[in-house]
C-alpha cells in the first residue's frame, strides 16, 4: 500500500478537495432534513421526554416541605420522631399558610395515605394558635393522628425527589409503610384488569382483522385490474372517512333499537323485549375497532401478495401439490412478511386506541387509553397518566422487540 498522498490536478490533497466538493451537497441535505428534524424534536422527542420525566418527578412536595424532609430523614420510623421534625413541619406549614399554597400538598399527601387531606386542613387552620416550643405536643393536641406512626411514615415516604410509585400504581402495587412493594387492597385493583383487557382486545382485533383481510387481500392481488381497483376503493373508502363518523355510524347500527338488533329480532334469534346489548360493552369495541383497523391489515398483505408471482402456485401444482398443499407450503409462507407487518400495525394501533372504545366501549369495553385520558382530563393526576403512557410505550416497544427476535424486522413489508 502506498502512503503517498494523492493530489488532485491543482495540487490540493484529494481528500480535502473531495470534502470541499461535497460540502455544498451536505449542507443542502441538512437543510432539507432540518425542518423535519426540528419538528420531530419539538413534537415527539420533547413530549416523550417530558412524559417520562413527569411520571417519576416528585419534587414539588419536597420543595414545599424542605425542612420537614431534612429533619425526618434521620428518623428510623420505629418510635415517634422527636421534636425537631415537628418544629420543621411547623415552620414549613406556617410558610405555606402565609403564601396560601398548602392546598397543593394536600392532594399529593392524600395519594400517599387517605385522611391526610382533613388532617392538614385542620392543622393549618389551628396553626395561628401555636406557641413557640414543644411543637410535638401541640401537633398531637390538634389531631391525634400526628401521634400515629403510620401518618408520619407516609410523610417520610413522600420525601424522595424521584419515585416509581406511579408505575407501581399502574399495575395495582404500592409501597407500604416500610417501603416494600405490596399489592393494592382488593377494592382498588383496577388497572391490571384494564391492561389485560386492552391486551385481549388488541389480540382479538388483530386476529379478526387477519381473518377478514387475508381473503380480501388475496382477491385484490389476483383479480383483474378493473375489479381490483373497485374493491380497493371499497377498502379505502372507510379509510378516508373521519374516525368519528365511522364510530358514530357503528353506534347507530349497534344500538338496541338499531338495524342490527332489528335484524336479529326479525330473524328470531332474540325476543323483542330481550334485545342483546351490542354496544357499551366489549362486543361494540371488537366490532368497531376491527372495522376501523381493517385497512391497516389489508394494505401490507396486499402489497406483499401483489409481489408473489402466480406462477409459483402453478409450479406448486404442476409439481404434484394439491391446491391446498401448494397454498400452505408455497403461498402462505411467502405472505408471512405481510401478515407480520399487518398484525404488528393493527396490534400496536389497537393497544393504544382511544376514541372508539370511549364511544362504544362503555364501562366493560374501555381500555387503558381511556384511563389515561381520564387522569389527564378529570382527575388531573398527570404524573400517573404519564406513567401509564410510558408503560404503554414500553409495552409497544417490547412487542416490537419480541417480533424482531421471532420474525426479524427485515421481514416486514409495508408496501
Amino acid at each position: 500500500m502506498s502512503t503517498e498522498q494523492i493530489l488532485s490536478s491543482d495540487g490540493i490533497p484529494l481528500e480535502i478537495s473531495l470534502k470541499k466538493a461535497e460540502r455544498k451537497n451536505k449542507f443542502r441535505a441538512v437543510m432539507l432534513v432540518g425542518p423535519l428534524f426540528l419538528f420531530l424534536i419539538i413534537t415527539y422527542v420533547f413530549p416523550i421526554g417530558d412524559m417520562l420525566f413527569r411520571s417519576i418527578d416528585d419534587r414539588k412536595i419536597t420543595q414545599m416541605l424542605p425542612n420537614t424532609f431534612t429533619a425526618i430523614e434521620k428518623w428510623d420510623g420505629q418510635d415517634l420522631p422527636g421534636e425537631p421534625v415537628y418544629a420543621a413541619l411547623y415552620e414549613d406549614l406556617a410558610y405555606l399558610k402565609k403564601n396560601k399554597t398548602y392546598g397543593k400538598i394536600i392532594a399529593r399527601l392524600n395519594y400517599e395515605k387517605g385522611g391526610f387531606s382533613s388532617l392538614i386542613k385542620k392543622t393549618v387552620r389551628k396553626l395561628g394558635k401555636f406557641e413557640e416550643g414543644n411543637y410535638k405536643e401541640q401537633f398531637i393536641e390538634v389531631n391525634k393522628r400526628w401521634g400515629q406512626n403510620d401518618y408520619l411514615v407516609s410523610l417520610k415516604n413522600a420525601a424522595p425527589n424521584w419515585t416509581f410509585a406511579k408505575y407501581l400504581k399502574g399495575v395495582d402495587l404500592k409501597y407500604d409503610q416500610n417501603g416494600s412493594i405490596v399489592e393494592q387492597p382488593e377494592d382498588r385493583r383496577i388497572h391490571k384488569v384494564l391492561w389485560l383487557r386492552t391486551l385481549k382486545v388488541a389480540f382479538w382485533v388483530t386476529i379478526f382483522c387477519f381473518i377478514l383481510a387475508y381473503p380480501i387481500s388475496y382477491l385484490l392481488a389476483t383479480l383483474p385490474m378493473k375489479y381490483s381497483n373497485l374493491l380497493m376503493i371499497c377498502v379505502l373508502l372507510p379509510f378516508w372517512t373521519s374516525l368519528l363518523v365511522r364510530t358514530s355510524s357503528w353506534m347507530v347500527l349497534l344500538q338496541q333499537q338499531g338495524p342490527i338488533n332489528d335484524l336479529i329480532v326479525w330473524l328470531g334469534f332474540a325476543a323483542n323485549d330481550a334485545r342483546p346489548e351490542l354496544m357499551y360493552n366489549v362486543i361494540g369495541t371488537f366490532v368497531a375497532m376491527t372495522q376501523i383497523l381493517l385497512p391497516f391489515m389489508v394494505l401490507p398483505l396486499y402489497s406483499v401478495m401483489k409481489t408473489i408471482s402466480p406462477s409459483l402456485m402453478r409450479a406448486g401444482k404442476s409439481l404434484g401439490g394439491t391446491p391446498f398443499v401448494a397454498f400452505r407450503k408455497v403461498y402462505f409462507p411467502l405472505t408471512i412478511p405481510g401478515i407480520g407487518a399487518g398484525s404488528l400495525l393493527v396490534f400496536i394501533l389497537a393497544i393504544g386506541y382511544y376514541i372508539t372504545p370511549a364511544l362504544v366501549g362503555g364501562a366493560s369495553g374501555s381500555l387503558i387509553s381511556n384511563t389515561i385520558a381520564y387522569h389527564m382530563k378529570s382527575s388531573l393526576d398527570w404524573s400517573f397518566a404519564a406513567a401509564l403512557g410510558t408503560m404503554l410505550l414500553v409495552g409497544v416497544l417490547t412487542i416490537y422487540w419480541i417480533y424482531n427476535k421471532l420474525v426479524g424486522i427485515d421481514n416486514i413489508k409495508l408496501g
Partner: protein
Amino acid sequence: MKNDFVKFDNVDKSYDGKILVVKGLQLDIAEGEFVTMLGPSGSGKTTCLMMLAGFETPTHGEIYLDGNPISNIPPHKRGIGMVFQNYALFPHMTVYENLAFPLRVRKIPKDEADKKIDKALSMVSLQGFEARMPMQLSGGQQQRVAVARSLVFDPQVVLMDEPLGALDKNLRESMQYEIKHIHESIGVTVVYVTHDQTEALTMSSRIAVFNDGKVQQLSSPDELYERPVNSFVAEFIGENNTFAGTVSDISGNSCKVKLTNGTEIFANPISIKAKGEKTTVSLRPERALINPKDKMDNNHKGKIEEIIYHGDHTRVRINLLGNDQFILKIPNSTSNLDIKLGNDINVGWNTKDSRALDPK
C-alpha cells in the same frame, strides 16, 4: 414407442367467447420427442402449453396423454413437469427443498428422495448447491435448478415455457445445448415453447410453427427451413427474399411467375395449383449466388444499394426485379467479387430453391 404419446385432438380455446386463441389444433407428439412450439406472441402456443399442463381447459376437443383423456384431471395429478418463464423457484426454500417438494408431496421416502435429488442436481452440474437459496444463485443456475426440479420426480412429459428468455445471449446458447443433452440422455418427452427461432432450430426434433391459433407447419428443423409450406413459415424462420407475382405457366415441378414489373422467373410450385393464381415466391439469401460460374435457372442483374459488413459474412442489399429489399449473404473469402455500392451484379438461383407459396 408411441407416436401419439401426447395428442391434441381438435382442440379449440377461447378466453372471452368471441375470439378463438387456438383453432382446431391437431398435434401428435411421440414419446421421447423434443417438440418446440414456435410462433409470434399471441399465436396460441403458450395457451396450448397451459392446456397441456392443466392450467387452462380446452373450450372444445380433448387432449390425450398416453392414450388417456386428461381434460378433467387437475394439474397436480397429471404428473407433468414444468419449467416456467421466470423459473418459479420457491424463494423461501433452499435448492434442496425446492427439489424435494415434488418428492415430498408424493411421499417418497427420504433416502430415496435424496438419491433422486442428487441425481437431478448432477444432471445440471449443481452438486454442492443444495443449501443455497434461489436468490443466491445466478440466473443460469436458477434456470438449472428449475430444470432439475421439473425432472426430479421422473415425469413422463416436461413442459418448458420460454425458459431461456431471461438469460443473456451466451448463457442462453450454452443452456440450449445443456437442455438438449439432458433430453438426449434421459429420453423424456419435452414440449418447449419459444419465440426464438434459433433456439427452436438448434434444440428440437420437430417444430410446430404457430400462427393465428393454428399450427402452420410441423416438421423437423431442416425441413422447416429448407421447405417451408407457406409464406408465413418462410418469413418467420430465417431470412427470406420475396417476390410477389402471378402464375403464368405451371408444369410439374416448375412454374413461371410473372412479377409486378413484368419479368418472368422460374419457381418451384408448392402451394399453387393453377395458372392465374397470385403467389409469393420465397428465396433464401444463401441460395442466390453472385456471378455464378455454372448455369442457373434464373439469372438477373441487380444494383447494389447497401453493404453491411458482419465479420464472417457480408450482407448486400440489392435492387433486383423491382424488389429493393433483396438480401444476399456473401461469405467472407479471398475471392475478389466486385462488390461496391452502386455496381450492377449478376444474381442467379435455381428453380427448386425459389418456392412459389401462398400470396401474402
